[in-house]
């Protein structure tokens, strides 16, 4: 048993995380199957978590060493584990390693063991408990979520809040050690973002309810709530699952309807490295859909390609940078004189610069439209029948129309 404590500990930790056990329970189980004892201290030497009763004969010597042995202080400075003999004369050894959270020292992990277990394995065990502490108590709370386990919540964070390569995550590492193969997602993937309609403040209760429904109805997903958005990472998506009536699209519509939410969905993608950009697409689809006020529940980003690209560009550098001087001039003229030149120009360009077609779409006489267009040309000093100028103006007007879009 003692010769393979590292493997046994990883197995117990993994199982504990999957079922949603707390830190104390996982440590107790890990220690009971391996015969080691573990105690985690804060930097003041106070016990945070221990596999034993507080007055145990193993905890006290560890605390004593922390307070009195210089080598423990050196360990904290150098961040390198240290192994000391138990001062109580029991013949056991104590392995200490630092607990580091986001580059800062926050505590000490200690493991008490029989020398037969092996110094190196004991050090690894101490490090593993330190990692587990940071993972579970990193945000100050390790109470299980109401939906999903710690493992799922952690993975959801890594998938939805970060863009780095996930193969380096502790979760992937644990899975690969525990099961012999890394956790695999089957592509294709997609990301959905849900929020309330045009309410003035986010409705956390509705989002939490919706999250529970997602957990039940869309099993191939990870999800979390952040900044007033329910973010859902979908995997194992087939070719038509995101089209209207598709296997994934329909449940999203139902969930959105049921909870009074709206949802933006990214296109399907295969490379996890692109997940950050696709999440941004889903959020932009949601915002654009909400601002359009179409009464639809789900807004696929694939049907809003132009608007999403333009809104992303605007978010990146700011509206004032991307607003064209010609469009601003025309908008200002309209505001001052009560004219509708910007809309007239926009409709003319949308109709492919065909006068009769544009006039009919605006219920105007050809002559009236021609007159207006000439006025616009006089203001702008440009020929918008030139293809390049026409494209520029179409895009510039689309940028201008985004000025009403709210921030995330």
């Amino acid at each position, binding site marked *: 048993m003692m010769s393979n404590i590292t493997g046994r500990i990883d197995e117990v930790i993994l199982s504990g995380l999957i079922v949603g056990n707390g830190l104390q329970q996982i440590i107790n189980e890990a220690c009971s199957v391996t015969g080691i004892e573990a105690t985690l201290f804060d930097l003041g030497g106070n016990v945070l978590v221990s596999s034993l009763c507080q007055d145990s004969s193993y905890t006290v010597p560890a605390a004593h060493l922390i307070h009195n042995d210089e080598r423990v202080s050196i360990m904290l400075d150098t961040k390198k584990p240290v192994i000391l003999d138990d001062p109580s004369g029991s013949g056991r050894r104590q392995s200490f390693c630092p607990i580091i959270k986001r580059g800062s020292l926050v505590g000490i992990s200690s493991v008490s063991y029989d020398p037969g277990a092996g110094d190196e394995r004991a050090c690894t065990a101490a490090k593993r408990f330190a990692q587990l502490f940071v993972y579970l108590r990193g945000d100050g709370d390790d109470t299980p979520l109401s939906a999903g386990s710690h493992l799922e919540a952690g993975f959801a964070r890594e998938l939805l809040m970060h863009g780095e390569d996930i193969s380096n995550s502790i979760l992937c590492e644990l899975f690969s050690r525990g099961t012999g193969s890394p956790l695999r997602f089957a592509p294709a993937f997609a990301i959905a973002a849900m929020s309330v309609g045009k309410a003035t403040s986010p409705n956390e209760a509705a989002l939490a309810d919706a999250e529970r429904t997602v957990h039940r109805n869309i099993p191939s997903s990870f999800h979390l709530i952040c900044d007033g958005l329910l973010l859902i990472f979908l995997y194992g998506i087939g070719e038509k699952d995101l089209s209207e009536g598709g296997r994934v699209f329909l449940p999203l519509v139902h969930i959105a309807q049921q909870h009074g939410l709206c949802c933006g969905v990214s296109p399907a993608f295969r490379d996890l490295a*692109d997940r950050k950009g696709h999440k941004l697409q889903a959020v932009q689809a949601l915002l654009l859909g909400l601002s359009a006020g179409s009464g639809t529940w789900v807004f696929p980003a694939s049907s809003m390609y132009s608007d999403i690209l333009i809104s*992303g560009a605007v978010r990146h550098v700011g509206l004032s940078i991307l607003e064209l001087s010609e469009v601003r001039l025309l908008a200002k003229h309209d505001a001052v004189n009560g004219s509708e030149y910007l809309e007239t120009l926009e409709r003319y360009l949308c109709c492919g*610069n065909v006068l009769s077609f544009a006039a009919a779409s605006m219920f105007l006489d050809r002559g009236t439209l021609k007159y207006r267009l000439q006025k616009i040309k006089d203001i702008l000093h440009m020929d918008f029948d030139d293809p390049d100028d026409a494209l520029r103006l179409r895009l510039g007007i689309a940028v201008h129309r985004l000025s009403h879009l709210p921030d995330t």
Partner: protein
Amino acid sequence: MDGLRTVFLESILSNDSVQTLFDRVYAFMKLPLICFDVSFAVVAYAFPRPYSYTHWEDIVAYGRASEKTIVENEYLTYQEFMYKKGSSSYFDSGTCAGFPQACGPVMQDGRLIAYCGIMIEDAGINEAIEANDLLSQVISVLLRPGRSEEGSTCVEAIAERALLGDSLSLESAAKLCASYPPPYVFVTLCSSGKSGVSTLEYVCSALCADKKRVIGCSSDGQYIYLLYYGLHPSSGLPVIMAALGDILRKHPFDIGVSDCFDNPSEISGGKIQSMLALSVGRASAQKLTLFQEHYAEILGYCAIEYFGRNVCRLPEIDLLAATDARRGTEVLKTLEAYLRGFRRHTTAAAALCLHKNTVSKRIQRIEESIGVDLSDSKTADRLSLGLIMHRLLESIAEKERL
């Protein structure tokens, strides 16, 4: 040297002009000396004329060195050497052959503002170098804009701070507007690595010469920022383009030009526009890029920065590009010409030098292969943008390969 130091000190305390300083120094040392700014325009001189050293004589006679002379004699190479050394050096070869001299840069707050030199004649080399170093420091003091608080509030200082990115108070903006009225255009020139600081300063001073309605400054040893002001509505931009085109023919720069704007508070926005134009120009190997002319690419570039490259691709365009690659067709080119020609078969046919019916058939096949209706304007816009993204991503990838 002690006597020389006294002369320098008296000049400073008397608030002398640089010319008066030079007259005093010449009276003391009897050695010819000269100072000219980064555009090779004379600031001060002291030697009997006509002087046998033609390079100095011509600068004084014409007020500045001609561009032809600067280029033919590689003046900028000598000046760059002086700048990089940061202090005076001994020159007696090349254009200085037969006229040994100590020359060095004049620096002010870390910026190169002028050069000065002393003919050595019968003086000691080390003494002349030491004297020239001291001379350059005194010139820097005498040329300082204002040693009081007023120096920092004068409009040139305000303009320079605005060009370098500082935000303007309402009062400063009003002062700027009064001296440099709108409309404005912001231009960023970026040295493509081969030019030194001397060239940068020279080009900046050449562009900002009198009556050109432009103010500018250099930055980071790599950039020149220019603000053109009081532009004429129709002829303003062509004049700017002509001046910049002239610079591009002679010096290795990349240039980005902003859109027009009316408010000095938008200078920082104009700067960002010009930098975006510069970035897009570099991605597509263009030397001079206007924000307005490359607006679509700039939007695309910003979208790529925000979402990432793969996310910005349009699957339909990728499909057509794959068809072209596989079969050697020109499907994308046809689509591009069609969309650019306002979806008129005749216009596209003329651009592609094809018959109208050929274009019509090709468009039909495109519609069938990607399942779209090109008569719908929203679809047309989507594909237009998708094509722009495709070309932009291709040129970025090509540039990275090189």
